[in-house]
């Protein structure tokens, strides 16, 4: 137990962060959080990363959290500082990312009076945080921070916000850590129902056409290895939601790729034809299921999730195990050792192989650069050994489909909220977590502009992030919907003014290269990857290039546009 007598509230914040094992945090100073920044001034154990916008700070913390499994920490001032975190909090909330956001608030005597830079950030963030606190008494400060980390990282992870009035950071109190927590309404006790486990086992063993389906919950539980072991032991085809990319290595023979709106054709067919889905850490999001009434209509569903509220929320289950993905998976593995009554599924494997052969992911490389070709060029050079963040839109779907990774920590993307502008700052967080690894920021020209100012953060910290812009001069994904479903009526999706991204990078002191021809792609990718420092590749692709396959929104998975 740590005890320090009579220190400022701001110092308590810093000491508590250290106790929680925080060594990297992201933020932006202002009037109200100035005292905390003053406490950070002398602090050697915490590396504070100053971004150029609070919105980027929280995305960077999010990227850091997703790629390390540790909670991300972000700090902002009151008022606009806090409100600039809103998108990032919602983003982390939708994807269950452990995050602790510390905002400063106006002094207690000014609260509720519409004071300068006052915003009710606790009220604003109620719908988008796992919990939010306003610290009204310095005696509660250490306990609240401890609880915040506990809530953020346990159970189904998520963002927690702690709002601290400026005068609380100035007051003095004794620091005792860890303090006792006071959370009577929160329990993470394991409640695995063995009867459900056995029922699930029976269904798995008797299934003729079983399919495994893995998602972000596996990543959060750090259970990829266990799940991979289960996949191999069961020898069943496995598909994933966007958040589950990397749980199964992309080059694994049982990997069917992503399911859903932009899933592979063979994964979508497999969902439509299978007789059992074993879903682990997934939430059957609408982008996955397509039209619900036809989703996996031949299948029984076994659902494993840490969040009881997810079970039966969208898809009715035949068996459901409420528990940690790793714990349940290991239990399955153990139970499986005792069973010898597995159905033969050779026929099912043949069927799946057949789909793979007849409906592969494909494209035709013409004299215009294809985005898929760029991703293949990256694969050839990195051989799956790279970290990548994506933005949102077509670049995201192409990356999910084509980029090769081996673990979920290598692939960071905004799934549930679909936040443009997430990728570049997330890559900053990833590169800080893995200073010696190749970190790619896969981007589109729309998303890239949203947090373009972070080029400065990259330059300042000398982070060798490789930015790959698949530039089609428009908001490609929205344009694709207009192309396919709105009679090609392209309302407000084309950027009439296209800034020169290479020159912009150069203005920041970052090297860049424009790529126009397919012949150059291989060399350009090589140059970027080998360059010692940040590098921007601005790659011209066609605005007409769409992401396929595509299940129209509300359509059935087996009814794809290809």
């Amino acid at each position: 137990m740590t005890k320090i007598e009579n220190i400022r509230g701001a110092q308590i914040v810093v000491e508590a962060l250290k106790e929680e094992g925080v060594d990297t945090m992201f933020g932006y100073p202002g009037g109200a959080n100035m005292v905390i920044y003053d406490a950070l001034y002398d602090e050697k154990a915490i590396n504070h990363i100053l971004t150029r916008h609070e919105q980027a700070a929280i995305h960077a913390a999010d990227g850091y959290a997703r790629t390390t499994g540790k909670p991300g920490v972000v700090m902002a001032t009151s008022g606009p500082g806090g409100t600039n975190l809103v998108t990032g909090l919602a983003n982390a909330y939708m994807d269950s990312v452990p995050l602790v956001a510390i905002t400063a608030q106006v002094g207690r005597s000014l609260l509720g009076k519409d004071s300068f830079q006052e915003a009710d950030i606790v009220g604003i963030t109620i719908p988008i945080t796992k919990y939010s606190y306003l610290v009204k008494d310095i005696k509660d400060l250490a306990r609240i921070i401890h609880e915040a980390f506990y809530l953020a990282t346990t159970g189904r992870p998520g963002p927690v916000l702690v709002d601290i009035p400026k005068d609380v950071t100035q007051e003095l109190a004794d620091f005792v850590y860890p303090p006792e927590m006071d959370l009577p309404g929160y329990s993470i006790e394991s409640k695995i129902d063995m009867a459900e486990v056995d029922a699930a086992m029976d269904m798995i063993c008797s299934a003729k056409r079983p399919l495994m389906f893995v998602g972000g919950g596996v990543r959060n539980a750090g259970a990829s290895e266990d799940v991979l072991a289960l996949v191999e032991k069961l020898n069943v085809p496995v598909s994933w939601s966007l958040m589950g990319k990397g749980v199964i290595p992309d080059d694994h023979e049982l990997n069917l790729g992503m399911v859903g709106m932009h899933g592979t054709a063979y994964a979508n067919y497999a969902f439509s034809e299978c007789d059992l889905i074993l879903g682990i850490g997934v939430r059957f999001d609408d982008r996955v299921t397509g039209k619900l009434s036809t989703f996996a209509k031949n299948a029984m569903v076994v659902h494993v999730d840490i969040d009881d509220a997810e079970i039966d929320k969208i898809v009715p289950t035949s068996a459901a195990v409420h528990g940690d993905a790793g714990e349940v998976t290991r239990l399955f593995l153990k139970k499986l050792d005792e069973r010898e009554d597995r159905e033969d599924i050779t026929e099912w494997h043949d069927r799946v192989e057949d789909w793979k052969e007849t409906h592969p992911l494909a494209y035709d490389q013409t004299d215009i650069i294809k985005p898929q070709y760029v991703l293949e060029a990256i694969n050839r050079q990195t051989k799956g050994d790279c970290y990548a963040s994506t933005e949102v839109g077509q670049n995201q779907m192409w990356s999910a489909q084509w980029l090769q990774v081996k673990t979920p920590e290598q692939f960071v993307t905004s799934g549930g909220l679909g936040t443009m502008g997430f990728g570049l700052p997330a890559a900053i967080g990833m590169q800080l977590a893995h200073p010696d690894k190749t970190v790619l920021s896969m981007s589109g020209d729309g998303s890239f502009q949203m947090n373009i100012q972070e080029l400065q953060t990259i330059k300042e910290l000398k982070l060798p992030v490789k930015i790959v812009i698949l530039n089609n001069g428009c908001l490609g994904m929205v344009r694709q919907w207009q192309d396919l479903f709105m009679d090609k009526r392209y309302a407000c999706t084309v950027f009439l003014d296209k800034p020169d991204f290479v020159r912009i990078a150069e203005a920041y002191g970052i090297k860049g290269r424009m790529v126009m021809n397919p012949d150059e792609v291989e060399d350009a990718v090589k140059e970027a990857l080998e360059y010692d420092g940040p590098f921007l590749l601005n790659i011209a692709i066609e605005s007409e290039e769409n992401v396929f396959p595509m299940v129209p929104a509300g359509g059935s998975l087996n009814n794809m546009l290809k």
Partner: protein
Amino acid sequence: MKHTLSVLVENKPGVLTRIAGLFARRGYNISSLAVGETDDPDVSRMTIVVSGDEVVIEQVCKQLNKLVDVIKLTDITDKEFIGREMIFIKVNCPDAKARMEIMQFVDIFRARVVDIGKDTMIIEATGEAAKIDAIEDTLRPFGIRDFVRTGQIAMVRGAKNPKHPKKSN
């Protein structure tokens, strides 16, 4: 000091959130709150008991009035009004003697016994806050198993009850 506010609001989803959020954000304390539909199903009445000094109460009233879904607000504290709360108390009554004693208290307070179990009884009582407090104090020695208390509802005596404005259409 405690003030009783009688508030007519639009009967719409989210109205309660708007009011609760306002109290939280401006740092006001709700002592109790009771909501129910009025004779007009489009309108609900809230009775809010709030504590604070005159300056705070004035702000509470003005801020509440600013909410678009608040139709009319009256601070009835200084008016002649009838205010009632209701409670259920589940008390221990291990034997006949205890039961007798409890029944006597129930009579004195004009409360009612609404359920008798093997070794518990449920008492229902309505009254002003002070009376409810007194019942609770009286029964406490028997051992209270469970306790449910509503917020106060209130109505001004005589003809001057704050009515909601006539609908325009």
